[in-house]
């Protein structure tokens, strides 16, 4: 007996029991992925939906142990993908879209902006998760009533006086840290933060761990990770383009600055 898994689902709908037997009496195991939760109905383990959206069922390869045990013949992962559009929906035809309320986890790729650098680490804020979209719906404009200038009147001194270029400084974004040893995989002892990142650079990075209460820990120690977007002269100059893995150039002036670039070629 097999139970059909619905294509489109709503929160609370049972999708499938964890174990199903297929026609040839072998047992198929289903495991809950994003957008689903394991629950019990009449003492049977069932995978329930937690989102409104499309159901995706993908086969998962069996581990060697499972093959040896021969108790299950196939394994599938059930996921529910929210029907909401996100920033990556237009670009990705291959369907690797993650729910837009998704939070970064180990191994996810994120775009971050450098907030400050020190000898040991670069502090960053996470602005977008690849395939999921921008972190917060609104950037900092007007968040603190930011307009052209931000004058604090004498008596109301407790207001944050933020004069920046409109970036999200309201503490709204998730913060992260890239430690000096996580910048690149080779010659780790020679890495200097200032020769890799500058404040306001945009970096493509991978999440190492969800870290502590304050910060995620991130790494750029693979080829495709590093600076993807930077301006010369600490952000005052012009847009730079990568020429190799550690140099960026301003084409019109020929200025060259050091960066740990992401996949220049």
């Amino acid at each position, binding site marked *: 007996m097999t139970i059909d898994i619905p294509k489109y689902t709503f929160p609370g709908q049972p999708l499938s029991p964890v174990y199903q037997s297929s026609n040839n009496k072998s047992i198929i195991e289903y495991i809950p992925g994003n957008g689903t939760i394991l629950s019990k109905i009449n003492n049977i383990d069932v995978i329930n939906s937690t989102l*409104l959206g499309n159901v995706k069922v993908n086969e998962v390869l069996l581990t060697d142990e499972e093959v040896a045990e021969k108790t299950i013949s196939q394994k599938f992962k059930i996921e529910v993908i929210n029907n909401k559009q996100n920033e990556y929906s237009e670009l990705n035809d291959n369907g690797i879209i993650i729910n837009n*309320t998704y939070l970064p986890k180990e191994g996810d790729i994120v775009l971050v902006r450098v907030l400050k650098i020190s000898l040991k680490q670069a502090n960053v804020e996470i602005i977008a998760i690849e395939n999921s979209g921008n972190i917060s719906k609104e950037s900092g404009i007007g968040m603190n009533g930011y307009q052209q200038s931000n004058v604090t009147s004498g008596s109301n001194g407790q207001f944050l006086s933020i004069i920046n270029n409109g970036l999200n400084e309201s503490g709204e974004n998730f913060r992260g840290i890239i430690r000096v040893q996580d910048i690149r995989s080779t010659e780790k002892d020679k890495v200097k933060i200032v020769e890799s990142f500058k404040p306001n650079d945009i970096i493509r990075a991978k999440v190492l761990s969800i870290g502590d209460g304050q910060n995620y820990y991130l790494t750029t120690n693979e080829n495709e990770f590093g600076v993807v977007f930077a301006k010369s002269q600490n952000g005052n100059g012009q847009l730079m383009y990568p020429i190799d893995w550690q140099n960026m150039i301003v084409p019109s002036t020929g200025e060259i600055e050091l960066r740990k670039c992401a996949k220049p070629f």
Partner: protein
Amino acid sequence: MSTLDRRRILGPANVKPLIFGLSSSQSKQENKIEEEEEEDINSQISKTFIKTGLITNANGSSYLEYNGNIISVSIYGPRPVRGTFTEKTSLDVHLDDNTETISDLLNKKFCNYIENNFTTVINLNKYPKSGISIFINVLSINNFQKYKYKLLSLISDATTIALINSGIEIIDIVSSTFDLNSNTVISFIKSNEIVGLLSDSNKIYKDVNDFNKIIKKLGNDSNIVKNSLINYLMSGN
């Protein structure tokens, strides 16, 4: 609002609020019609208007209109919270009453009710180090004195829809129903599990059975509400 508020332009201090004279007698008849309608859940549903996703800078939102009550709910989050590491998300609820009829105390009560309802339902483990905020805006209220818990049940339903719209994972749809006679609101999930209950009746129940009857009646109604919510959600595909 205190008169010492210097961040808002409040106008002169010695202003008296407008007090309107008593309504004329004709509204009594209307009340009777409303009371009859209160018994008929299906006709209520057909008069309810719901729309989602109107507020674009929130993660999710819903707008609900029923019989002179207008409610807008927006969901913000999961977004970072300051402080120490938390493995689960925390939920906070704010109710802003644009009509200035809900007292502060009831406002708190409503917020608590909604918070309790939904902390049991949101899949909190999915969102570490973060918080989810529910902002409820009450834009218009009809006959608050009599139907205050009706309003609460509408708020609860609107919040369910807004949460689903936001893409935050919830284990089941919460559907709430209201009983006028006993002035009771109950919120249900799954097959009649109660996640929230408020009752303000001045009647004294003879025994538990009386109350069981109410629960049973509201349970049935809530299934109808739930089904129509599901219909709405699934048709939006």
